[in-house]
């Protein structure tokens, strides 16, 4: 491939010790959008997603002397951005109970999306995920986009595995109700 942003991970990592600034730029161009998207899917906040993704690259640059990537660079960066996201959530100290109460009132109206003409699948997926109660949404997006097991999610959010499973079941049920009509059995 000849695209500027498609240099191989080996090439980028090999460049890091000798020409760190070029290596960082290539890495940034290849993965920045991917990391922002991963974080935004969990946090639903574009501004913070961009801040946190930049933090991930800055950390790589700061630790460039001792860094060792044992998985793929993509998986390494994704893991790092999910960790950043989790730290951000912890620092924010979200009050789950309140938010769940508020959000469940909001989610009662999730069904209205389906009554509209010209409503497409993509939009209804968006609004269905956005309207999940906050904690339910977080568990779902970490599972779907963060490549985390139920046990990992439970540990990170300081809740029981049972709670993770319950939230996941709730999320799948609500999403099925909201977008199910668009999906054919396959």
């Amino acid at each position: 491939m000849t695209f500027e942003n498609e240099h191989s991970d080996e090439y980028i990592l090999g460049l890091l010790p000798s020409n760190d600034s070029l290596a960082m730029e290539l890495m940034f161009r290849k993965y920045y959008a991917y990391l922002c998207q991963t974080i935004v899917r969990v946090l639903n906040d574009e501004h913070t997603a961009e801040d946190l993704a930049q933090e991930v690259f800055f950390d790589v640059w700061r630790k460039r002397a001792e860094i060792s990537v044992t998985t793929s660079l993509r998986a390494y960066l994704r893991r790092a951005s999910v960790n950043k996201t989790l730290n951000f959530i912890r620092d924010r100290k979200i009050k789950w109970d309140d938010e769940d109460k508020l959000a469940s009132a909001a989610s009662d109206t999730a069904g209205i999306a389906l009554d509209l003409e010209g409503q497409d699948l993509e939009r209804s997926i968006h609004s269905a995920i956005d309207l999940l109660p906050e904690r339910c949404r977080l568990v779902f997006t970490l599972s779907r986009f963060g490549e985390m097991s139920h046990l990992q999610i439970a540990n990170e959010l300081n809740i029981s595995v049972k709670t993770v499973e319950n939230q996941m079941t709730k999320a799948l049920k609500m999403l099925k109700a909201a977008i199910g009509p668009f999906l054919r059995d396959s």
Partner: protein
Amino acid sequence: MTHKENKDWQHWHEQHPHESASLLKRLWEATGSYRKDYHPNEAAGLAALKSRMNQHQPAKVVRLSPSKIALRIAAGLALLLIATFFFKNQIGESSSATAVSTPANETKELALEDGSSVTLNQSSQLDYPGAFSKKERKLKLQGEAHFKVNRDENRPFIIETEAGFVKVLGTSFNVRSYPNDGVFEVFVETGKVSVALKTNDKTIELGAGEFLRLDKSTNKAQKGLDKSGTSNAWRTGAISFREQTIPAVLTGMERLYGVKMDLKNEQPNNCLQTLSLEKGKMEEAIEALKTSCPKLKFAKNDVGYVVTGVCCQ
């Protein structure tokens, strides 16, 4: 599916052994498009990263005698503390969010960082960052609030509610979005406001004096002129109706007195009323209505009144 996606899916499938495989698969594929339309500003991000890299000077390698090492470590620690402090401050400023909420019997005045002001109605909550971003001023509202927004052409002011987004450059207006009442409403006092509903593609432009009311149960939106001041009644404490229908007057009473006015009448109730309502004078308001419509009956219940009969044939 690409190889990578296939691996992710296998992982997800293993994580949810109790779910039906076909349901999981359909949701896996469908949700893959979530937020795919979002593309960050790469050039701006790269510039920000590079400037941080430049500020962070590489350490020079200097051989130290053991006596100097302790001194260096102390100096290093002090620097690290300062750096951490500075860093935390920076992060705190750019991403810390404020949530202000009001109890059931109180309203609150807020001054925002950009000079705009907000009056938050009872039982409402407003979330906003400590400092707005350079591109936009974003807030989240649950409940009702009146905004007076300072004009900034380069930074639109965007309020997210359950049912839609309200976007302005600078103007004064009222937004009502309580989770438990069936209405989402935006009313514009001065300037121009655009409203994007979450459930369809349309953006609705509102001018001075205009309101948009979305009935959340039927999902029908209605645009109109609010001459009586119903939308602002919670702040002004008064509504004055000029030739308005009975249902419009009852809605005004609901807003002003915080009660439910349940109109049971199926027949047209279209004769027009001219009257003024004042805060705290609900009994008088009902008396005034009874005087001009002797056939209208008001029966009190625990949330307000059930209204039956017709005003005129």
